[in-house]
């Protein structure tokens, strides 16, 4: 009952104007045309024998309201359906291009009943036994309160007085006109009416036919059916052809000549006669990398000439080449481990090749020699050596038998670009391995040497830059610890000694370039 009763206020007030109940309250008015937007709503209410009320509506600012029927009260056991309208007060609306805040306020006084003890707003003016009504599960002693409630409700509204203004007087330039306007407040549609067609949008570039005789240009701004216009007179085309130039050095694809050239006129800036371009389209030559194309444009009796270069980037010159890979990091590692006992070096076997394709490319304002690098190479490097190491006291001599390999590959598919530094680099995929064995000559009487080599991780990283010149690669390596572990047994005293000998602590090689 409480909710139903509260709804009376709503019915009496803002349900008249259901759209106004939204968060955004905007009304638009055109001081130019007298047009305005509205809010309309309708709703009804049937009261019970305990419900009644009335509302007093007041407004602030340039806003008007109406309700039909114009009865702002309702008695018990009555049904009323209302229709309400909100609209701006055009005469008192603000100047075009500005806005103002307005509002309507409803002050209400309503009476209704609700179950006793349930709480809620309002003053309890009476109590009665509801006679075992259903909300109390048939309790014959249950009572309801008669409640009177006073309050008010505000609906704020922004009144926009719309406007549109052309940013510049429309003038033909180089065969076209730029139409630009600023609407207020901004939402809605902008349309253009011209002798050479209709357009929409706040910024429009429209082609002006040669020999245009002049006429009105009107821009109209419309929001929620409310419109405002601005009209200017555009002068006729009377210009004669003065200059014809290319706007860029070159083209790299089939292109319409007007798109890459510019004409100027004396007079008002647009031709009195049609422009005839020869040729109308240009494109790359199938035979030549770069070709100079003569252009002409004619307007009436006047002809002007220009030229532009057409560049065919598909005319390429290709060379194959290989890279001499550097195995210096792995040689460096072996040098450090062995004390430079592996001077014989390893074998370096290259596979694959790269191609370098050079061609010319049109970068609009300049022509640039470009290079495309493509291909893949693999290198395998192997080294085997034997060198002595020291540090096991019960061993007469110990040789480390070392096998090391490095497999590296490099793949590239990249082209230099018109903009930016010509940086073309690729990372190596490189895997290395080192295997170790021991050749041990034991000290006198030592009869067993159960020792083995433990080698921790080996890795390589690097890259190769094909551009900018000179082409250069960088690679470095990392090797973890190498240990000799096990047991030696024997000697004069038949002892057993555990071996845990760190042959090599690990190394990060410097970065080698090649």
């Amino acid at each position, binding site marked *: 009952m409480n909710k139903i009763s509260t709804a009376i206020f709503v019915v009496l007030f803002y349900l008249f104007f259901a759209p106004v109940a939204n968060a955004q309250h905007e009304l638009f008015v055109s001081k130019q045309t007298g047009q305005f937007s509205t809010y309309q709503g309708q709703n009804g209410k049937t009261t019970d024998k305990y419900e009644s009320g009335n509302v007093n509506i007041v407004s602030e600012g340039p806003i008007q309201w109406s309700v039909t029927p114009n009865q702002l009260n309702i008695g018990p056991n009555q049904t009323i359906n209302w229709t309400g309208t909100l609209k701006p007060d055009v005469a008192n609306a603000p100047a075009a291009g500005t806005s103002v805040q307005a509002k309507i306020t409803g002050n209400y006084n309503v009476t209704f009943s609700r179950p006793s003890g349930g709480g809620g707003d309002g003053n309890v003016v009476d109590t009665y036994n509801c006679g075992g009504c259903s909300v109390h599960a048939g309790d014959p002693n249950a009572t309801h309160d008669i409640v009177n409630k006073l309050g008010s409700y505000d609906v704020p509204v922004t009144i926009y007085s719309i406007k549109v203004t052309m940013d510049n007087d429309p003038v033909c330039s180089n065969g076209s006109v730029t139409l630009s306007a600023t609407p207020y407040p901004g939402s809605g549609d902008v349309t253009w009416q011209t002798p050479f067609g209709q357009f929409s949008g706040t910024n429009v570039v429209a082609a002006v036919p040669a020999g245009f005789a002049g006429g009105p240009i009107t821009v109209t701004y419309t929001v929620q059916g409310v419109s405002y216009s601005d009209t200017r007179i555009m002068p006729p085309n009377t210009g004669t052809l003065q200059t014809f130039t290319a706007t860029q050095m070159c083209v790299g694809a089939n292109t319409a000549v007007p798109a890459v050239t510019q004409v100027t006129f004396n007079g008002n800036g647009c031709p009195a006669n049609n422009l005839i371009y020869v040729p109308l389209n240009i494109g790359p030559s199938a035979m030549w990398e770069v070709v100079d194309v003569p252009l002409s444009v004619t307007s009436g009796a006047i002809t002007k000439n220009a030229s532009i270069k057409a560049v065919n980037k598909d005319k390429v010159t290709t060379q194959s080449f290989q890279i001499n890979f550097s195995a*210096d990091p792995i*040689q*460096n590692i072996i*040098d*450090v481990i062995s*004390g*430079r*006992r592996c*001077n014989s070096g390893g074998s370096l076997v290259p596979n694959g090749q790269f191609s370098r394709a050079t061609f010319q490319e049109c970068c609009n304002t300049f022509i640039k020699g470009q290079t495309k690098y493509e291909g893949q190479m693999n290198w395998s490097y192997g080294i085997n050596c034997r060198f002595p*190491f*020291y*540090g*096991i*006291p*019960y*061993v*007469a*001599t110990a040789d480390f038998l070392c096998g090391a390999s490095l497999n590296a590959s490099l793949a590239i598919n990249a082209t230099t670009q018109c903009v930016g530094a010509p940086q073309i680099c690729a990372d190596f995929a490189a895997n290395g391995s080192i295997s170790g064995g021991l050749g041990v000559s*034991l*000290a*006198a*009487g*030592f*009869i067993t040497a159960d020792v083995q080599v433990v080698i921790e991780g080996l890795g390589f990283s690097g890259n190769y830059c094909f551009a900018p010149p000179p082409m250069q690669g960088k690679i470095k390596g990392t090797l973890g610890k190498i240990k000799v572990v096990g047991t030696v*047994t*024997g*000697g*004069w*005293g*038949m*002892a*057993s*000694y*555990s071996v*845990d*000998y*760190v*042959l*090599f*602590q*690990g*190394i990060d*090689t*410097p*970065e*080698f*370039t090649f």
Partner: protein
Amino acid sequence: MKKILILTLLFVTYLANAQNRYPDFTVGDLEIKVPASLPGLKPDATNNGFITYNLKGQLFASGQNNIIQESTAGFSGKSDKATPYQTLTELVSVVRKSDWKAMKKLYVKSSAKELDNLIPEDKRADYFKSLNENKEVKVIGCFEYRNGVLVLIENPDKSVNTAFFVKDGKKYMMQRLVDSSALVWNLSLYFRFRPQPVKPAVLVSKLDSVSIDGEQKLIFNTQQGNWVLLFKDQASTPVIIRVQDGDAETDFDPSPGVVEVRLSKRNLSGTKQYNINAAESNYPVYMVSDELLQNASKVSFKVY
């Protein structure tokens, strides 16, 4: 007659013992400082670049008798086993005879049982042969260790051998030692190398700038057989180059006491000014230590 025989036997025994000679066994306080840069050391407490061991033991100085007497030099074959060296002398004697049973009798019982399993019968000839290649058993010294005395023996190839003795009544008997301690390992290494203090390497060649595609020759004067070490100015990094005087593969100057090192592209990381540390040692050093950094000369040159 019986009395005469006994006297005769006693006299013969006296004569035999009278010919036996043993290294003097005298134990005192020892302090041995092992450079932490010695290759192969097991980790142990390091202070100022040295591992210091304070022991009860004995080291033989040059000129002292530290050679174990052989039977061919008059050893009778029997001793009182009153010192570890006496028992060791008996051991050498039975090894020379390849007498497995006699050798086992020199061990405490618990060790003697292990020996048969440790060296099967078919391997014993090889064991004796290996030991007997050592024609002269030279004692480095000894130290008290665990429940006995560990004797260090120098092999002709400078490797180190050991024998462990425990006292059984008045006799020193051999005992098999199973050991993983840093102490024994590190002392054995120390006596293998007998490290001298590291000193700055003496560069005698005049250096000029060199092309990256060329070679930079560095010539050092050293003590014969010593090592020249080249390394960066950063502790705990690997020694980049180590060359031993006279090593045919790495020393490009065969003259004794002269080491020639050649640096090429694979040792140099690019064109720049190089400032390299150089030191000389009588043992190979693998890692850069503070001692090395403090006792290095500077070698500078430009690579273009």
